[in-house]
């Protein structure tokens, strides 16, 4: 098979994970109007919890379920009791707060699990590779693609098809109007912040068998998530999907074309998108 086709296929695989990683950042921005710099730390936490639960003898599927919920719970508590009090402040305080939170989480992970990384092995059924013609692909990665696709549909349904989703989208336009309709927007804020953390935690748990766990994976994840949402459009669900897949493909194809520049290309792509379409590919004017 053509190497570029292989790379595109692989890029979609990477991109789906990027999507899951970025979508939470995007949703949170859409409603709360600030960039959550601790999103990467939630990813990190999800990965480590998945690892920890595995160590404690829980099987992978349970870990995959439990880890994100714990992360979401944590995020909910932070939002409910601390973060809420600084919404009214200028933008840089939100950044300061979430940067601080990210540092605390990362260092807490190091203190508890140590600075060395660890391996998380995929569940037995997903060990090994699938071969089709010249195409070799790890089963686990295929599972990740399928799983994130299902998650994407689920999230899409939550955001587009349910009353909660309507309220979230409404809140991203005007929080005041939502509360005028008798809905407690603060609860929605907490919920959305927790949902964002949930997706990040889930992405972390999913990524753990691919990447292993390592205390600095959060920082890297945050960088990628930024790029994805900026390319796709801040606050846009479909933007995160398109952005994620695009970044995955660029990265993958570039590793054949100009391998040492693969990382640089992502940022060049991001700057280009920002200059040509200031609100991202699918973003709406702020």
């Amino acid at each position, binding site marked *: 098979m053509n190497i570029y086709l292989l790379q595109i296929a692989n890029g979609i695989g990477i991109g789906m994970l990027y999507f899951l990683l970025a979508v939470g950042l995007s949703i949170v921005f859409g409603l709360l109007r600030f960039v959550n710099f601790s999103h990467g730390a939630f990813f990190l936490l999800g990965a480590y919890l998945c690892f920890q639960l595995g160590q404690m003898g829980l099987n992978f599927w349970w870990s995959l379920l439990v880890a994100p919920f714990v992360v979401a719970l944590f995020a909910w508590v932070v939002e409910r009791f601390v973060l809420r009090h600084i919404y009214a402040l200028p933008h840089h305080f939100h950044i300061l707060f979430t940067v601080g939170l990210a540092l605390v989480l990362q260092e807490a992970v190091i203190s508890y699990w140590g600075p060395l990384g660890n391996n998380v092995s995929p569940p037995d059924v997903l060990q090994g590779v699938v071969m089709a013609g010249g195409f070799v692909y790890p089963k686990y990665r295929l599972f990740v693609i399928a799983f994130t696709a299902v998650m994407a549909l689920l999230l899409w349904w939550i955001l587009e098809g349910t009353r909660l989703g309507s309220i979230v989208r409404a809140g991203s336009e005007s929080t005041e109007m939502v509360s005028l309709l008798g809905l407690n927007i603060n609860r929605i804020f907490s919920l959305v912040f927790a949902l964002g953390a949930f997706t990040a935690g889930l992405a972390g748990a999913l990524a753990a068998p691919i990447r292993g766990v390592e205390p600095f994976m959060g920082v890297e994840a945050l960088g990628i998530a930024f790029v994805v949402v900026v390319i796709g459009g801040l606050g846009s669900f479909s933007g995160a999907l398109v952005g994620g897949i695009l970044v995955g493909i660029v990265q993958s194809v570039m590793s054949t074309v100009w391998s040492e*520049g693969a990382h640089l290309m992502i940022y060049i792509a991001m700057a280009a998108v920002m200059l040509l379409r200031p609100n991202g590919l699918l973003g709406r004017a702020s």
Partner: protein
Amino acid sequence: MKHIVHFRFTLLAALVALLLPLCVSSGTLATEVLIYALAALGCNLLLGYTGLMSFGQGIFFGVGSYATGLALLHLKAPLLLSLLIAMLIGALVALLVGWFSIRQRGTYFVMLTLAFAQMFYFLAYTMKDVTGGDNGLLDIPRPSLSFFGQTLLPTSTSWQYYTFVAVLFVLVFWLLQRVVDSVLGRTLLAVRDNEARASAVGYDITLLKLAAFVISGAVTGLAGGLHAMMTGVAPLSNIEYHTSESILIMTVIGGTGNLFASVLGASFYVLVGNWLSSLWPRWLMLLGFLLIGVSLYMHKGLFGLAQSLLRKLQPGKNQSAAAAIKENH
């Protein structure tokens, strides 16, 4: 007597430069404080005076250290000339980054500067013939301050170099204070407060923001150059995202909208960071808690805290001091 008002913050800055050697036993640590104070000044000019939150200050810092390093290594340039080159390159790069970034506002502006920071990092990494790549530029000499072969001020020991940096620092502080008190500085405040109105009364806000960017780039470039001379290296980590982040954090911790606040912020960040890192390997956690604390409880930064403390100490007299400080906003 009336003129002292114009100089009061410069005098305070000079006081810091004088007192630092008494509080800090290491010349290089003290020098680093002043160097980062310069970088924070540049950042504050954008954040506090123009309302632009730049996540790309590390670009100018890094570019400044490369420029100085290259000038000293390849051109064998004298001390001041190589710093001048750092400022020029810093300003030039700021012009470029600013030109593209200021079309965006708010979060998008932040993200765009962040993207540029990453791009310049990878650019520096990729252009290893110029920048030394991951190894950075090594063996950067530190010439003495000389004039036609006459050595005015040697810089070989760390305290000698501190003296040079301190003089430069006070000078730059004074110049910048002059700038923010000037027509330009005061007009920038208008841009920060209300762009639409500033435009409606006749100002070209693009040009004004660019001017702020260029000045900020020059000052930050200078800081980068001084840092390269101090350490003898211009490493890749100077242009990293982390440098941008640290500079921004110092500025916010100090408090925005007053230049002296940045001096406080940088001193605090560098000294406390240095102290914490010697206490506990997980000192970044403490730093994280510190940032959370600042965002929750210290909205005016250290400077605001100092102001309110002063006011409490001397309720009567400091009314005027507070008013004087306010006038500066």
